[in-house]
């Protein structure tokens, strides 16, 4: 127990490392990585998710293929790709940006899936109602469809943030000094304190993740859950198109399977 308290007294090193004088490490780096990758992934995820519910095959299939491929690849493989391939392509990235890129790719695919489920949960007729009040299609998407969809997606986003925060510990393998690496460095410096340093590491992850999962539980009770398993991949939304095609071209390119 004394060992544990002694490690807890060094909480500042576990949280931010030697930040003002040295590089930012520890728990703060985990949170920073999670926030960066989630917010970048959200931007691309909305675009991909909109593409996935599109009825146009030339938009839908590339998006679905990207999402399916990334979702069935381990995160470690994506990190390896970013680590080995980007230098070959002539991009010299630091370890931090390398991990941000790989985590963003991972987050994009999962968030696109959440966004798709949210779009499919918006009732039909909302777009028609918005158009009949004189909005343009883009305005209707921004002011009517997206707010309703986001309301339903919010609990899923918070729980995804939780899992993404846990996944940021994976970048320890390419040598980013975040909380896992910090704990291991301390346990290697003082081998008789190994249990205490691991416990502090676990405590750091647990506190953040537990508060996040509590928030998502509260939100789920308030806003309801989307049933992801109920949506089949071939479903698309004809009414959500931004740039309608002339009907002759549309008949050639668009599938008939709508919800």
């Amino acid at each position, binding site marked *: 127990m004394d060992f544990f308290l002694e490690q807890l007294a060094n909480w500042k090193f576990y949280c931010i490392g030697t930040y003002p004088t040295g590089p930012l490490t520890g728990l703060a780096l985990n949170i920073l990585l999670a926030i960066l990758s989630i917010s970048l992934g959200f931007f691309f995820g909305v675009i991909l998710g909109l593409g996935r519910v599109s009825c146009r095959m030339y938009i839908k299939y590339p998006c679905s293929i990207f999402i*399916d*491929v990334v979702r*069935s*690849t*381990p*995160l*470690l*493989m994506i990190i*390896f*790709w970013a680590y*080995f*391939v980007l230098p*070959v*392509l*002539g991009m010299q990235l630091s370890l931090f940006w390398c991990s941000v890129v790989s985590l963003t790719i991972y987050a994009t695919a999962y968030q696109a899936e959440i966004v798709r489920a949210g779009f499919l949960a918006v009732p039909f007729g909302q777009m028609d109602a918005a158009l009949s009040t004189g909005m343009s299609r883009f305005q209707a998407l921004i002011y009517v469809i997206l707010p309703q969809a986001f309301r339903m997606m919010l609990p899923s986003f918070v729980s995804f943030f*939780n899992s993404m925060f*846990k*996944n940021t*510990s*994976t970048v*320890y*393998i390419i040598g980013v000094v975040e909380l*896992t690496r910090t704990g*291991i460095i301390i*346990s290697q410096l003082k081998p008789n304190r*190994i*249990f205490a340093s*691991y416990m502090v*590491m*676990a405590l750091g*992850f*647990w506190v953040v*993740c*537990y508060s996040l*999962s509590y928030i998502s539980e509260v939100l789920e009770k308030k806003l309801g859950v989307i049933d992801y*398993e109920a949506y089949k991949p071939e479903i698309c939304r004809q009414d959500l198109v931004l740039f309608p095609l002339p009907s002759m071209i549309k008949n050639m390119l668009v599938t008939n399977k709508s919800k």
Partner: protein
Amino acid sequence: MKLFNLRYEFDWGIPFREPFVGWLITGVELTLLIAVVTAITSLVIGTIVAMLRCSRFKIFNIPAKIYVELVRNIPGLFWLLFFYFVFPEILPFGIGDKLHEYVKYSVVAGILGLTVDNSAYVSDIVRTGLLSVPRGHIEAAVSTGLNRFQQLRHIILPEAFRTILPPLGSRMIHNFKNSSLCMAITAPELTWAIQQVESITFRGLEVTFLATVFYIGLSLIMAAFIIKLEKHLKIDLTSIKEKRTGDGLFS
């Protein structure tokens, strides 16, 4: 037009050269072994924890809840590292030293860590399945004279597993993907083999490409299998009703 400044010449002979091909094959075998064993163990432990969580008695209820909350909020990588580095230290009577001497302890630690990580998620999924069994079915089972074990065996668990098959399947695919994390504790599975080949030859792209194709292919096959299994196990309620009313007593 040259889009990228590609400074790399592919040499597809590398994955098939001698020490590397052996590493890759044992890597694939170990990945499959870890994935299958952790799937089975975590399913068993997860089901037991879920049944404890649904219990009325606080002695069973609260420890199970603590277990789930503790494990779900700590990353899987931590559990792997914990079982590899810390677990032998805290065992009494010198068992830990024997474990250190055991050559394949990294694989065992990987299986233990992934089981602990996965069983919490599985138990949450199974719990939603157990709660989704209608109350009337259990009452009907009681009234036909089945005891508690028979109810579980014949009524509750089959119905629960039918409902939770899709999320359970996606969790198992996730577990298969997570088995790549075992490389952090030097278990010689596929990702570890890739990393070794890269660090010896400085040519990681070919093997990384092959491994990615392996992971993607197997996950997609598992997903297709689960969809097929779900369709196979689905009970078509409408057809049963028609049959019953067709030759029933009051038809």
